């Protein structure tokens, strides 16, 4: 039985780090942005209307839309030494037209000429190539090696396909493109004594001037004909550099800064007439539409993964930003559902826990713990490693990297209680001069009566906490693991729990006497452990790429399945009816298995980084997976049997790692 693709229903996430990654299609209806390996086509107004273009094997690093809206080009990164393909998509048919393979490691950027005929691509610092392609046939016309300081950004002229502009550190080049004779003639612009690192470029309507955004924080105006510096500004520099530039409908510049400001710059004077501060830094801007009296709309994508719609009112000279999409911006560590309730789920990531509405895919609540409160001063961010809902639904418990367990009320997000120093050990590295704190709660589980919490720490302890109506106390601290405890599951009748650790041991604990019942070992970093639905078996997975089934009574290995051929198995979850088993792996795949057969029926490709956690919703309609790429992917659950319906979306999925 062939493996079928798992239909991706929706995703919450935005690849905010990709420069100019947010594109508004020329029909002004669809927002296009990369998310890991996928490209998301999202309806401008409705978050739930999403389509996905899947074809890249690694993180998408560049995205370009042709002027007519017919073609979409996307480039990716690859491991060092491997080729990085560019995919040209037929936008209307949502199909791959060409796969252009010439660059290596990383595609820095892409741009279409004004008549869609030519496509230029330029590689990153490990590649240093500038290539011009013919869009229709997909053949490479001409190219040139570009030294390191040649191409960080490139742009075609607006009225001719003979002029191509590239800019990089300290250098601005204008290339004469002779497509018929397959020749590229470089010409360097004179920008005087100014030392600037150019980061982005736009060309005006009449092909007279180009405008370069610099890391210094100003915009340079360089004339294309005489290739001379002409003007620059604004006087007050934009902090942390200009990351993206766009023309407004009124031929002014809207500038996205590294400090998160969106600036409107009047053109002949370079006067910064309006600025609006957003959190994060602005990595991409897409001008949407124009209104009366100099008003216009612009979409801004930030490095923190948020998409804002900024409305500029020309009459009042006022900017107002509305958040239209929000998501995590860093590795997501955990996802969980409340018991027997699939409308909501909770994700744990850097600095915050967020509660999402599964149906509307909207953020319901954000509980932030800024780094100020974190005692681990050596870490950059306060991270939430794990979270769980109390079965009575009254609190969310979470384990943090500073060794505390924090519990929050789910509706207001108020902190209910904190268990300080829940998992902490003073120790020292060999050879270190000072002692150091090893702390962090890496696994957490609740009992079904909501009276106890079982937690596991990075130092390997498994601790049981009593949670009263107004107080909490430690009932037992069980020390057997020598490495971090990665996962804990409690039996439904609260008599036993099972924990697994990086030291290659899985232990079964008695929760009435607080001692060890049994243990299993393997040469493996165990990453996840669950009970089967009838609790007769224990399932584990880990870095040995295998899913192991153990007997729950005598802890003998029953069956071992190869979960993946190339990556670690990082998480697993079984369906409430006991038929299905979902796994997520380090090779970015979400797999759905039949529990009894041990056969993989569906593979979901969409993550661009290891999948850290996967959960099947309690009503068995959706699978939610989160990864280190900060994406939350929501898949349709299909019964893992041979006659189950396949994907209704016709997406050709090819991954180098997917099983044949």
């Amino acid at each position, binding site marked *: 039985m062939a493996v079928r693709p798992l239909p991706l229903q929706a995703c919450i996430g935005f690849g905010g780090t990709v420069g100019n990654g947010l594109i508004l299609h020329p029909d002004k209806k669809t927002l296009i942005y990369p998310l890991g390996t996928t490209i998301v086509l999202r309806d401008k107004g409705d978050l739930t209307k999403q389509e996905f273009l899947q074809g890249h094997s690694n993180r998408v690093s560049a995205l370009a839309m042709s002027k007519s809206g017919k073609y979409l080009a996307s480039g990716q990164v690859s491991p060092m030494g491997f080729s990085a393909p560019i995919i040209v998509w037929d936008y209307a048919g949502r199909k791959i037209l060409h796969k252009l393979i010439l660059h290596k490691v990383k595609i820095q950027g892409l741009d279409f000429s004004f008549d869609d005929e030519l496509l230029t691509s330029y590689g990153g610092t490990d590649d240093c190539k500038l290539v011009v392609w013919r869009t229709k046939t997909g053949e490479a016309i001409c190219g040139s090696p570009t030294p390191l300081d040649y191409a960080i950004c490139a742009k075609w002229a607006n009225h001719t396909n003979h002029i191509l502009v590239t800019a990089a550190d300290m250098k601005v080049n204008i290339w004469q493109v002779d497509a018929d004779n397959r020749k590229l003639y470089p010409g360097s612009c004179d920008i005087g004594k100014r030392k600037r690192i150019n980061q982005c470029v736009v060309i005006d309507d009449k092909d007279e001037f180009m405008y370069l955004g610099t890391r210094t924080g100003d915009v340079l105006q360089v004339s294309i004909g005489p290739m001379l510096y002409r003007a620059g500004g604004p006087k007050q520099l934009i902090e942390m550099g200009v990351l993206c530039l766009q023309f407004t409908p009124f031929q002014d510049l809207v500038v996205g800064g590294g400090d998160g400001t969106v600036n409107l710059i009047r053109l002949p004077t370079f006067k910064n007439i309006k600025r609006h501060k957003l959190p994060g830094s602005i990595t991409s801007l897409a001008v949407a539409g124009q209104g009366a009296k100099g008003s216009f709309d612009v979409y801004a994508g930030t490095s923190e993964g948020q998409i804002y719609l900024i409305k500029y009112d020309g009459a009042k000279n006022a900017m107002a930003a509305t958040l239209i999409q929000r998501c995590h911006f860093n590795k997501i560590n955990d996802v969980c559902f409340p018991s027997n309730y699939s409308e909501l789920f909770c994700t744990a990531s850097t600095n915050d826990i967020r509660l999402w509405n599964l149906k509307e895919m909207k953020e319901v609540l954000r509980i932030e713990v800024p780094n100020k409160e974190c005692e681990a001063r050596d870490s950059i961010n306060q991270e939430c490693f794990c979270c769980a809902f109390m079965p*009575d639904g009254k609190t969310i418990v979470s384990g943090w990297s500073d060794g505390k367990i924090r519990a929050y*009320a789910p*509706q207001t997000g108020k902190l209910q209680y904190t268990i300080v120093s829940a998992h902490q050990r003073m120790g020292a590295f060999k050879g270190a001069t000072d002692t150091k704190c090893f702390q962090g709660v890496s696994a957490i589980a609740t009992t079904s009566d909501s009276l106890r919490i079982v937690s596991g720490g990075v130092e390997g302890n498994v601790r049981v906490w009593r949670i009263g109506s107004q107080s909490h106390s430690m009932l037992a601290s069980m020390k057997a693991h020598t490495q971090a405890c990665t996962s804990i599951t409690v039996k439904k009748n609260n008599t036993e729990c099972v924990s697994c650790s990086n030291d290659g041991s899985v232990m079964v604990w008695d929760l009435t006497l607080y001692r060890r019942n049994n243990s299993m070992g393997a040469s493996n970093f165990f990453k996840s452990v669950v009970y089967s639905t009838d609790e007769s078996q224990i399932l584990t997975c880990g870095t040995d790429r295998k899913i192991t089934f153990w007997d729950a009574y005598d802890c003998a290995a029953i069956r071992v399945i190869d979960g993946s051929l190339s990556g670690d198995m990082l998480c697993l979850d079984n369906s409430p009816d006991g038929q299905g088993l979902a796994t997520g792996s380090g090779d970015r795949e979400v797999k759905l298995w039949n529990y009894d057969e041990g056969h993989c029926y569906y593979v979901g490709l969409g993550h661009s980084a290891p999948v850290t956690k996967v959960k099947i919703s309690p009503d068995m309609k959706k699978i939610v997976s989160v990864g280190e790429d900060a994406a939350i992917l929501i898949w349709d659950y299909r019964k893992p049997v041979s006659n189950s319906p396949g994907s209704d979306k016709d997406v050709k999925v090819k991954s180098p790692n997917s099983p044949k």
Partner: protein
Amino acid sequence: MWESKESVYKIIKPPVAFKPRTPPPTASEVRDKKIAKITRRLKLMLRQKSAATMGKPGGHYKPCVKNFLKKHSKEPVIVYGQQRCTKHVKRFPDVPKDKPVYGRVKILDFIKMNAEQMIHSKPDRSKIPKKQRRYMFKKSFGKLPAYLTTRMKESADKKKKDSPEEKAKAAAACNHAGTRKLDEKERISMMNALKMKWADTNARYQRLSVALDLDSQKRAKERFEENLTRLEKDVSLLSRKVILVSDSAPSKVQREVTTPKH
């Protein structure tokens, strides 16, 4: 079990079931409802009344629980938020909020303005001497006033009546010298007047008390009776068909009239 007074399961509200909106009742429906209510009440009343043995049906004298004397209900109610005038302070109008425009100076040519004003001005009508009225153009100019013509006509008629020719003519008509036949109209009106007077006198007479104790009462009674008989006599006289009237008084009466007593 930590009591946070919140729940995950309450975050998403269950979808509200669709409620069909009933259209507002029409006028006839409202009327029917009212009529039904009244008839229901009447029927109930009838039923209770028929069953009652004495007084109002049971439960009617139960005091209403809601109508008790409430605290402070007899004190005057102060309406807050309404501005009440306590002091008679002269209030000045607000300072105008719109800014005065500085620097805009109007150059006025007073000579030209004055000239224009003069050209367009009109005299005050109230101060102009009025036109003399000319009586010649009056409608009634040179005509006798209406009151004078009627008066003259009346006197002429009277003269004509009093003229000896006329008198002779009347006497000839009734075959007696120095008399004339009383006009039928005059006779009837006189008789009617007498009858009215009789009715009036009779009414007063009838209103007299039964027992006449005082002399004055007796005298009044006698006077009434005398008047009534005289009136009856006059009426019977006037009810004759032909009445001849002499304009000159009878000799006895004439003597009394002409000769003064002293």
